[in-house]
């Protein structure tokens, strides 16, 4: 594989054959490596001409070659994932659709239970809210020792 590195520009260039890799895989690989490189793209009839520019200032020849290798691996990762995804499409679609539909639990949300609209329930909730707010006001923002609560006197085998 021919890698054209330019240490001064912190860049490495190579060709991606269109008969092997797709634009979709290229886009995803570029997105995944975005924290490390800026990706520049040109193309001929047979290939995508990719240039990676390292974001780190200290990118020497070995680092540039390594970035190109990572990009190539991510391309392969995506391309093979497409192959596998297409092969198992029927089964995986069945699983994903089934799981999402079951979790959704139906089109319309369930109505609030009748028990929650009784005056007793409403009063209970109002009391809970009032008590909680009172306790928050009473106890916060009291300074709490970061050592926690005080324990009873230490016994012989404290700590194990």
């Amino acid at each position, binding site marked *: *594989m021919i890698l054209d590195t330019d240490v001064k520009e912190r860049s490495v260039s190579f060709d991606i*054959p269109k*008969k*092997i*890799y797709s634009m979709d895989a290229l886009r995803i690989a570029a997105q995944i490596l975005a924290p490390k490189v800026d990706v520049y793209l040109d193309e001929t009839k047979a290939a995508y001409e990719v240039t990676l520019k390292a974001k780190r200032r200290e990118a020497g020849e070995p680092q540039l070659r*390594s970035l*190109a*290798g*990572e990009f*190539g*691996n991510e391309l*392969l*990762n995506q*391309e*093979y994932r497409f*192959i596998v995804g297409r*092969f198992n499409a*029927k*089964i995986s679609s*069945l*699983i994903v659709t*089934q799981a999402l539909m079951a979790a959704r639990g139906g089109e319309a949300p369930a109505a609030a239970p009748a028990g929650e609209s009784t005056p007793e329930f409403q009063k209970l909730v109002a009391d809970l809210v009032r008590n909680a707010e009172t306790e928050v006001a009473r106890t916060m923002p009291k300074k709490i020792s970061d050592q926690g609560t005080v324990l009873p006197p230490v016994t012989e085998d404290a700590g194990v």
Partner: protein
Amino acid sequence: MKLKTKIASKSSKSKPAKKSPLPSAVCVLSDSEASITLDVKVEGIESIFGAAYLMMDKAFVFLSGDRAKKIVVVLRPKDEALPLRALADEFLSDLESQKVRWAVAKNNLPVREFIAEQAVLIANGTIPPPSASEAAPEPAAEELTADQRSEIERLIAEVESEIKTMNDRKVALDPKGIKASWEETQEKKA
């Protein structure tokens, strides 16, 4: 892509196992890379990608060529101390295993899909789950019920139809079988 294995019929006797054919690989080692050229028709596109994919923990992997014809797999070890020959050998070994894994997967995809559909129907209550008596060991082939027999035959027919469609497509493109491998030619003669 032609499937190289056949689906067993009810009355099939055990056939002598096929030894794995020698890979069509041509391997070239340079200072820093191993390049392996593979015939896609012989090795299979999924197997080539699969074997290349599995090398990613040890090597930077790059593919070139043409998915329909020949692919060159270039392996550059992540650890320069890793011998190139060992890397290439590992790839070739995984390639042979990938061919088996993918053959088994393709042979059984209709069955897996069918069972997945059955699972949904059972879970949703559309069909009942197997009862305790149904869960008894499978009867011998000659004791299959008519329903079981026809279900198996339907599945086999489905897969064989797929194989036939792929073969017909290939014949249409190559009526004189010029591109057929020696092995495929021998199979036809047999």
